[in-house]
């Protein structure tokens, strides 16, 4: 009975996706109904996940699945973040498609399938299952990016994403094969045992394989030097999908990366130096790209690279006594809330056919729509890491963790990078508040997104002062 509870959120999203696919065939259900159904399914899965008590490591249906899945508090919280991201992306989509074309009823089905893949990804304990989960997620996200095939930007985005994503998938499979060749098993626990037994560097197949796997993850997480695709893809995708990719995909990838790194301290040690330089390069590459952007979506994509850099710092520091996965999850939650908030706000402010997407389009927003502007300012300040927002607390835990692990250099560079990032976050605030409005910012009425924006703005402070995730 208990095992059922553990995988029930997983089952609910998967079954929900199929349900929507079936329901979409009937004439009676239109856009509004399906939106509500999609959001309802996310909310349902979220509350089940919330009620499950996953203390300690649980292997659901260990005989049937042969220990392929593992659940603990870390996977529980990661799952909660993913489901919440799904809920708010669905909410953004509801609003977005009242003023943009290109909607198909299967949109919510794909969203749920992607969430299903992500939930599975957080719980995997074995390399082949990991690949299956990764592909379920990726295929659904490819579809979401490019389903509007009449649009050239969408087609460009999906082509770039699909081609490069396929390479990353191939790298992963190659890596998994080599690791299997080196250790004779695909289970994380067994790999860990082999490494503990004979050492990480003793086996070239293991070293090569694990680096190939790491490359695949770094690609998905948009870390330097695998970050180039992110700008065009985020820009080309519809706003709710960009929101979903920026938050939920990142959460699931970092969850699985943390799980994989924690297999064994020696594996972690083998990667630390590598991740150390990567995190620095990722932060600064992201900042330099973001500073030059004129388009908000592209700026947010580039700032997503910077946040990946911070998360990599957390991975470097992972495993030190006081700071474990909690800091990563907290950062992901804080980043998720702010990013989703921005995208939810953009999904109604951008207007017909994403008319308003550049910095200049938001000139004087604060005078016309003071509450929206205030919420956006809160999200931006949180992303920049200004106290007392959640973003500051997230950075604070990560920097404290880096110190803890003896990487003072990383801590200082992380702080320097956060000052650089103010350049582009403040820029939007300046445009919104200190310039005169030139337009009326008319948007579709009777939508859910404004409400969602306010809820998320409250969340920015709520998780800052009550860090339940930690």
């Amino acid at each position, binding site marked *: 009975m208990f095992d059922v509870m553990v995988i029930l959120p997983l089952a609910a999203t998967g079954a929900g996706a199929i349900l929507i696919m079936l329901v979409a065939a009937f004439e009676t259900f239109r856009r509004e109904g399906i939106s509500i159904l999609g959001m309802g399914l996310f909310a349902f899965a979220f509350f089940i996940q919330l009620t499950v008590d996953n203390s300690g490591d649980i292997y659901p249906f260990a005989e049937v699945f042969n220990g392929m899945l593992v659940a603990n508090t870390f996977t529980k919280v990661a799952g909660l973040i993913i489901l919440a991201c799904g809920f708010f992306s669905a909410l953004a989509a509801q609003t977005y498609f009242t003023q943009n074309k290109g909607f198909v009823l299967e949109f919510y089905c794909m969203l749920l399938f992607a969430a299903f893949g992500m939930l599975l990804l957080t719980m995997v304990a074995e390399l082949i299952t990991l690949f299956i989960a990764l592909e379920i997620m990726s295929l659904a996200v490819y579809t979401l990016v490019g389903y509007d095939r009449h649009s050239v930007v969408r087609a460009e985005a999906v082509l770039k994403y699909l081609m490069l994503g396929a390479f990353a998938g191939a790298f992963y499979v190659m890596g998994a094969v080599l690791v299997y060749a080196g250790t004779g098993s695909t289970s994380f626990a067994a790999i860990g045992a082999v490494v503990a037994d004979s050492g990480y560097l003793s086996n070239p197949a293991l070293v090569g394989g694990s680096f190939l796997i790491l490359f695949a993850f770094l690609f998905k997480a948009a870390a330097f030097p695998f970050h180039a695709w992110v700008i065009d893809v985020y820009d080309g995708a519809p706003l709710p999908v960009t929101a979903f990719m920026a938050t939920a995909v990142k959460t699931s990838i970092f969850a699985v990366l943390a799980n994989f790194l924690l297999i064994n301290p020696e594996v972690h040690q083998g990667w630390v130096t590598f991740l150390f330089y990567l995190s620095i390069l990722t932060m600064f590459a992201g900042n330099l790209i973001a500073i030059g952007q004129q388009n908000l979506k592209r700026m947010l994509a580039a700032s997503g690279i910077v946040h990946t850099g911070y998360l990599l710092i957390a991975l470097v520091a992972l495993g030190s006594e006081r700071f474990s996965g909690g800091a990563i999850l907290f950062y992901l939650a804080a980043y998720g809330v702010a990013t989703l908030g921005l995208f939810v706000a953009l999904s109604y402010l951008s207007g017909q056919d994403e008319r308003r997407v550049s910095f200049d389009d938001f000139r004087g927003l604060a005078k016309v729509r003071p509450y929206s502007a205030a919420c956006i300012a809160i999200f931006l300040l949180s992303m920049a890491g*200004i*106290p007392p927002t959640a973003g500051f607390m997230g950075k604070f835990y990560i920097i404290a963790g880096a110190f803890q692990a003896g990487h003072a250099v990383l*801590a200082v560079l992380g702080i320097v990078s956060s*000052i650089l990032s103010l350049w582009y976050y403040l820029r939007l605030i300046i445009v919104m508040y200190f310039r005169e409005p030139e337009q009326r910012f008319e948007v579709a009425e009777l939508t859910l997104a404004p409400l969602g924006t306010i809820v998320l703005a409250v969340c920015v402070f709520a998780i800052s002062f009550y860090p339940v995730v930690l």
Partner: protein
Amino acid sequence: MDQLLLNPGFPLLSALIFLPLAGALLLLPLRGDGACRSVSLAVTALVGLLSLLLLAGFDRSTAAFQFGETHPWIAALSINYTVGVDGISILLVLMTALIMPFCVLASWSYIKVRVKTFMICLLVMETAMIGVFVALDFVLFYVLWEAMLIPMYLIIGIWGGPRKIYASIKFFLYTLAGSILLLVAIIWLYRQNGYSFYIPDMMWQSYGSTAQILVFLAFFLAFAIKVPMFPFHTWLPAAHVEAPTAGSVILASILLKMGTYGFLRFALPIVPDATFLMMPYVLWLSIAGIIYGGFTALAQQDMKKLIAYSSVGHMGFVTLGIFLLNKQGIEGAILQMVNHGVTTGALFLCVGMIYERTHSRELSSAAGIGTYMPVFVTFLAFFSLASFGFPGTNGFIGEFMILAGTFQYDIVLALAAIPGAVLAAAYMLRMLQKIIWGGTDNPDQSWISDLNRREIVTLAPFLLFVLWIGLGPAPFIALMDESVSALLTNLQAHQAETLSAVSWLRP
């Protein structure tokens, strides 16, 4: 936690911190500018009155932190909500709470657009400012310290003058960049102290000397920019000139004090060895600030710029007093912080009142208005005299104590500081002379009206404090005496310990 006397009764400090925030939330649903003004005035006045309870219950005979409250906040990292006041912070808390109602009054007719947003910014500022002065947990302190930037940034950026965007960004980036290394120092101290952010625990420990110097430099950068000390002062004139009156008053009276408060609260007790080592350099930087501020103020045509540069000079006196590390110096410095808050705040209010009438801050366009505004120039004369330390005003007491301390420390240093006082007299008298008697070639200003009742009510309390501190400073000094003595005793004990530890190195 023997340095913290818990307060079992009414949580007075929390009330002071959170009441303005509650007021800001109360403003949200309000419609109508008049209602917003009245509610914010009521809230700030209530906070001001509550702060008097603090004074009534304050025990002058102990150096411990009083009215203490402590609640767990983030248990995983042992971050607590811990607050308390001692003799060093109580005057600053009182000053903050008492000045804020007058900032609301000063914005009564000055702010015409987006009144509600402005009042919300003021109230959030008040929460953060009082919080900074009473926080005893380093994370709480840092969060509030940074949180203050956002409302101030908006105040300058939305309601400011023509170059408001430049000024607000410069203010924001400068102060943020300065304090960001403070965070690194905080986390380092946290690790050294068995994972505790409790500030009194960090004091008087023996850290290694290299580490102390690095931590001191991190502190110094953050606090020196906030003060601002020469050569980190360039954001100040820009911010002051562009900010609306209330913004200038808050900046001058309260924000600048946070830097010097930071030196007293953190630099001296946490890294005493580094303080002793760096003391001469900081002292000479202070002298440079005093002289530089004086000369630059002498050359200004814009009244706000003039007062802004005079602030650089006055704050130079305060840092001078602090780093003398003797009793007159530190007590004079704390008193001078309050004096500067009162007189410079009042001077900015005066300039704001001229600006509301003539829409210009140029000295030349204000020349000769004394004929038409007799009440106004009477106030202005008192505040200007206080600003350059005329005997009988508060400025005299503060500067006298600091200079007395300087003579005790080193006569060369004292002689170097004296010209600053002369310069102050020169630029203030130049301003007074122009405004009161001014040229006759000014366009006809007979239409200008004298102060109305609201403006007199705004200025009168400042005048009261100018004369009160000037004629009878004893009760103010009595408030801080015990804490300053304890600070110096600890400092000397620590110095003796360090000297005995390195004495074998000497021939």
